[in-house]
């Protein structure tokens, strides 16, 4: 099957961003910022890189994706809907009682591999799946998107040590490095220092890109395939709220309610970008 071009993927990422807005109930809080900053990464994974098939969600050879920064799951819901894992109208039921789309990722949702939301846990789960692949002699890959603030969790470094020790070259972490967390700027509130250097010293192969430049994202994901004997991390510089003019780089939109007008404006921003 022909691989999608950069241009095509950029168009799809607009659909993903619109899909994120579909999940948001007017006047109710939603994690807009972090979902938008991950949107291009999620697009690249679901529509370019990952081996997967919505008609066969349990295919044992499928690539796995874990959204460790689970509060940004809205981007994944949009991608799963776009891929046909469930009908698009379901997006509107997000976070309502009994919905298959919960506030944070749950395996009740077709296409979701792990329950996350409690930060710091997804990388460990991913590494377990990667070990599973090796034991099972399968060549599927495991992709995990991490938040930058999430790197403060000690469990991440337990997983980093272990992944490197077990030489898990089928494990790829992607850091959505938008430099903001719930209470504001990371550098001001809780400085994480040299993220790339930290992963490197823990034995990971590192890549650093613009997380909204589709060409760079695709190049990095392809380069990772060449790595043998070590896990990889792609540090993706992103903008929280990217694509929505009033939310871009604005910590207030970590988890905020949107009015009807704001949603309309956001849609216009996305379609006209």
């Amino acid at each position: 099957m022909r691989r999608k071009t950069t241009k095509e993927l950029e168009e799809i990422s607009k659909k993903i961003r619109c899909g994120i807005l579909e999940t948001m109930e007017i006047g109710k809080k939603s994690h807009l910022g972090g979902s938008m900053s991950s949107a291009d990464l999620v697009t690249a994974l679901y529509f370019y890189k990952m081996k997967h098939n919505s008609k066969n969600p349990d295919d044992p050879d499928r690539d796995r994706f874990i959204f460790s920064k689970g509060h940004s799951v809205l981007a994944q819901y949009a991608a799963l809907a776009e891929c046909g894992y469930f009908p698009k109208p379901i997006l509107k039921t997000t976070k309502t009682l009994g919905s298959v789309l919960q506030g944070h990722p749950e395996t009740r949702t077709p296409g979701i591999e792990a329950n996350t939301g409690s930060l710091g846990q997804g990388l460990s789960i991913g590494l377990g799946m990667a070990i599973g692949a090796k034991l099972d002699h399968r060549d599927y890959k495991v992709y995990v998107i991490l938040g930058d603030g999430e790197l403060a969790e000690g469990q991440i470094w337990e997983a980093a040590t272990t992944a490197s020790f077990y030489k898990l070259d089928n494990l790829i972490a992607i850091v959505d490095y938008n430099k903001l967390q719930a209470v504001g700027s990371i550098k001001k509130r809780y400085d994480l220092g040299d993220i790339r250097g930290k992963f490197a010293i823990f034995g990971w192969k590192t890549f650093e890109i613009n997380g909204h430049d589709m060409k760079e994202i695709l190049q990095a994901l392809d380069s990772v395939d060449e790595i043998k004997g070590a896990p990889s991390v792609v540090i993706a510089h992103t903008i929280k709220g990217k694509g929505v003019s009033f939310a871009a780089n604005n910590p207030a939109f970590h988890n905020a309610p949107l009015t009807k007008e704001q949603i309309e404006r956001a849609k216009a921003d996305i379609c006209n970008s």
Partner: protein
Amino acid sequence: MKIPVICKEREILVVFKEVLIENLEKKANLIRRYIIEMISNAEGGHIGGALSIADIMAVLYFHTLKIDPKNPEWEDRDRLVLSKGHASAAWYAALAERGYFPKEELLTFDHINSRLQGHPDMKRTPGVDMSSGSLGQGISAALGMALAARYLKKTYRTFVILGDGETQEGQVWEAAMTAAHYELDNLIVILDYNKLQLFGQTNTIMNIEPVIEKWQVFGWNTIEINGHRINEIVQALENAVKFEGKPTIVVAHTVKGKGVSFMENKVEWHSLPPTKEQVEKALKELEYF
């Protein structure tokens, strides 16, 4: 043991330093003897990891720490947290020798109702600043003490002895990141880098290397030494307390079971009760001056 002379006026200082080193070596040796006696009397204990920090304990308790055994609650005292709490025998030995409680009490180690519990208990033992035993936690508490010192505008320093296997615990890296973020130069960690843990060599269980570079990337000042050379420990701690702007880790290369030939570098001596013959042999090797 001679320290190089810098100039004539320093000759006296050199002589004093020689005497200091010799005294500290004697103390380290005594601590080792106490460890053997305590653990054999208790019919078990974490002997290897206690012996590996005996020299470090000697320097801390007889040179570096600003403390007062008659006043264990003195609010301006330097703090020590034994984050690798299972090496408690070494701590109790040092505390007893320093005068926090009678030496005879060492024989109650690990006995019921004793003030000397298997892992440090700050509510029971004079001189123990923080309870520990569940690995990875002591360093966080120490960081809290260091933060408190700055907040209360006090000048006490906080020292932590960390195990190398212990750095597999994620919480250690949470503490490392936080200490660096707060630029806590009143926090000094000493890593007992003996390269062994319960089931084997650290680098075969869960490799923690490269140790020095990791702490540097996490924003720490690093010093690397031989953890059994008293003069190196003395110098390292003197430099560490003077360093500004970052917390310091002294990575001390040590030998598990150091001082007793048949225990050195042996995984099984993590916590084996020595037989009567082994105790005699060990004490004979530790006969000193």
